[in-house]
Structures are given as structure tokens and as C-alpha cells.
């Protein structure tokens, strides 16, 4: 079963410095019908104006994965980590038993477009941690590139999160096809970051999401000028 979450049906907030679309309930957007999908709790699509951002704030017991589509996002935290996250990089922060961080646009001239993902951890009170990795764009072109998973994989560097969830990214050119098999009793969430992609014959446009359950074979194809998607493989 595939249930599409249309882009325009997402929650939306525009604070001037922040233009955000919320796939699931977040901050002032509260929709009991869209609280989460499996362990995926938050999927925010944020555009932040130059020099602006989220000042210091706290998190607890959440795996927070951030992926940047455009620009640079400056991260600072209470562990002393200070890094700029750019396209073709992924950041995973395990809030554990408590962390304070800020995320601001690293540029005074260009906006930043970022995707923030919150995954509920498998257990509470973990020790906070921070990881950031970069990868060549070729690794996501026409194939699934693992961004985050429950343990370090042998072949490819990815961030490690404390939950049985794998997050992949892929960029498909027009007409380019990709298949992925879900293991038994697994679920998937697909989020279109850019462009258009079809999923098992159904067209998904930029900003659309799709919840997948009781399906084993996922067939993707770039539509129109192609697109970039995130694939969440969830227990």
C-alpha cells in the first residue's frame, strides 16, 4: 500500500527569515493525522534567509539528521562541535541525554535550503554524539547512497544512528530507473527533495512524500527533468 502525502498538504510556516514545510506535526503545526511514520517523527524542509537561523536550543532523546540541498548551514553545539554543512554531506546528531545547539545560515548573501529529519531513538539517555561525512555526488547518481543507518557499513561511510532505520539518497536523471527491495515487514517513506520521480508508476512531485507498507518491490524512475529523493527504510 502506498499513501501519498502531497507537498501542498504539508504544514507550512513563514516567519520571514524561515520558510518551512512540515511533513509531520512540528512546532505550531499540529495535525494528529500526521504525527509520524514508524520511527520517523520529523521531516522538515527549511529555507533560511542569509545570516539567520535557529539560535541555541536544546534536544533530548532524538536522532537528528540534516541534509543540505543548497547553501551552507553553520552548526555549533554544547560539545564544542562547530562545522558548516554543505550539499553532498550529511550530519547526524544524537541528542541522547541532552544537547544544546544552534543552526544558522553560514552565508550573509545566499539562502540555505536544508532537510531536517528526526528519528525516535531505540533507547533513551544515550551519550550525545555528532557525526558529519561528505561524499562525491557520483555516489548518489542513479543509485542509493546510504546517509545514515544503525551501524557502520563495510563498503561505504555513513553516519550511525541509534535506531533500526536506514536513510538513503538518490538522484535520478530523466527516465533513469532504480529498483529496491524491502525486506519482509519493513516499511518505507519516500520524500522528493527536488524535481519529479515516479514510484511504482505513481508520479511524485517536488515536496511530495509517500508512505509504503506491505510492499516488497519499489521501482523508481526520474520523471520530467528527473529528481532527487530520500528513501527511509524503517522497521
Amino acid at each position, binding site marked *: 500500500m502506498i499513501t501519498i502525502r502531497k507537498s501542498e498538504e504539508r504544514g507550512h510556516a513563514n516567519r520571514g527569515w524561515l520558510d518551512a514545510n512540515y511533513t509531520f506535526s512540528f512546532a505550531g503545526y499540529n495535525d494528529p493525522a500526521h504525527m509520524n511514520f514508524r520511527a520517523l517523527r520529523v521531516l522538515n524542509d527549511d529555507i533560511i534567509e542569509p*545570516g539567520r537561523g535557529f*539560535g*541555541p*536550543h*536544546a*534536544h*533530548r532523546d532524538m536522532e537528528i539528521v540534516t541534509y543540505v540541498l543548497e547553501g551552507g548551514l553553520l552548526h555549533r553545539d*554544547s560539545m564544542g562541535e562547530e562545522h558548516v554543512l554543505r550539499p553532498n554531506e550529511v550530519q547526524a546528531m544524537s541528542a541522547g*541525554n*541532552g*544537547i*544544546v545547539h*544552534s543552526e*544558522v545560515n553560514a552565508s550573509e548573501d545566499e539562502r540555505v535550503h536544508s532537510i531536517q529529519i528526526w528519528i525516535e531513538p531505540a533507547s533513551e539517555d544515550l551519550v550525545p554524539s555528532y557525526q558529519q561525512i561528505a561524499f562525491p555526488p557520483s555516489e548518489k547518481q542513479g543509485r542509493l547512497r546510504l546517509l545514515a543507518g544503525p551501524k557502520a557499513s563495510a563498503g561505504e561511510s555513513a553516519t550511525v544512528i541509534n535506531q533500526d532505520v536506514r536513510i538513503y539518497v538518490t538522484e535520478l536523471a530523466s527516465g533513469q530507473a532504480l529498483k529496491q527491495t524491502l525486506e519482509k515487514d519493513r516499511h518505507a517513506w519516500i520524500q522528493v527533495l527536488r524535481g519529479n520521480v515516479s514510484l511504482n508508476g505513481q508520479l511524485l512531485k517536488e515536496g511530495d512524500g509517500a508512505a509504503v507498507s506491505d510492499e516488497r518491490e519499489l521501482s523508481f524512475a526520474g520523471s520530467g527533468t528527473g529528481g532527487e529523493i530520500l528513501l527511509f527504510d524503517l522497521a
Partner: protein
Amino acid sequence: MSQTEVLITFYSRCGSAEKLALQAAVGAVQARAMIRFRRLPDIAGSHSADSPECLKTLDRLRKEYIGPSEADVLRADAIVFVAPAGFRAVSPEWTEHLDLIEELRSAGKLEGKVAGAIQIDPQGALPAVILRLGFIVVPSGADVDGAARALAHGRRVAELANLLKTGSSSKL
């Protein structure tokens, strides 16, 4: 019952006191409190020339934080005050805020609120000043490292506020 709210009120120009404020906040979060940061606004001409690095930090601090309001104080179950080295109650950045706190104390609006003080100089005057302001004051521990001390103190303040909140709630 709502989550305990801890207000972290600090003054920092070059980032050292901010680091302690962040650690105090982590401690409060470890105690499952909700936290809010407020940085006291600068007073023009009250400081001598800062280094270039300090000026860069100061610019960031001014962008990232807002100053505390009366509503912030009233909403908080607990407040952790964090001051840089050389704190004096008559420091221009602190005077106005401490006057506000004193007014609230006189009006009986601080009853049941918990507070703690963290200062880079452990022998500084901030704890004594906070003690006079009508809060239930949590004394700081004797941990050697400043960051660990701040974290532990933030946690203790939040834990006491949690206990008081749970206690007052169970009586209702």
C-alpha cells in the same frame, strides 16, 4: 503537569560565560526540563576595547540571543544566572535586570522559584547577590572543572524545581 521551565540568564562578550550557560542548560535538559536562553543586553561604553576575536563572538551573541523580559522570569520555574569573571552587582549590564528581579521579589512574585548562580570566578559575588533576591537558592558544587560544575549545577537546579513542581502539583 507541564514540563519544568528553566531560564538561563547570562552575560557574555567573548563567549566564556556563554559556554558555561550552555553547559548549565545541558544539565537542566538532562533533568528533563525545558530551557530558554536570555542574554543581558550590552550597555554602550561600559567595556574597554575588545579583541578582534571577541568582537566577532560579540556580534554573534547579539544576533543569537534576546534579552530577558518580566514574562520570562514569571514563566520560569527556575533561573540559572551565569556571569563572566569580574561580575559586580553594579555592572551596568546587570543593574536593570537585578532591579526587575528585586521588584518582582517585593511584589511576592518569586515565591517558590528556584535559582542558581554560576560565575567563571568561583569566588565571585553573583551567588551572594542571588541569595538576597528571594529565590530558593541551590548552592553550587565543588567540582573542579568549570564546564562540569556548570552542567552539574544546572542539573541540580532543574531537579529541585522538578521536585517542588511535583510536590505542589500532588497537593492540588
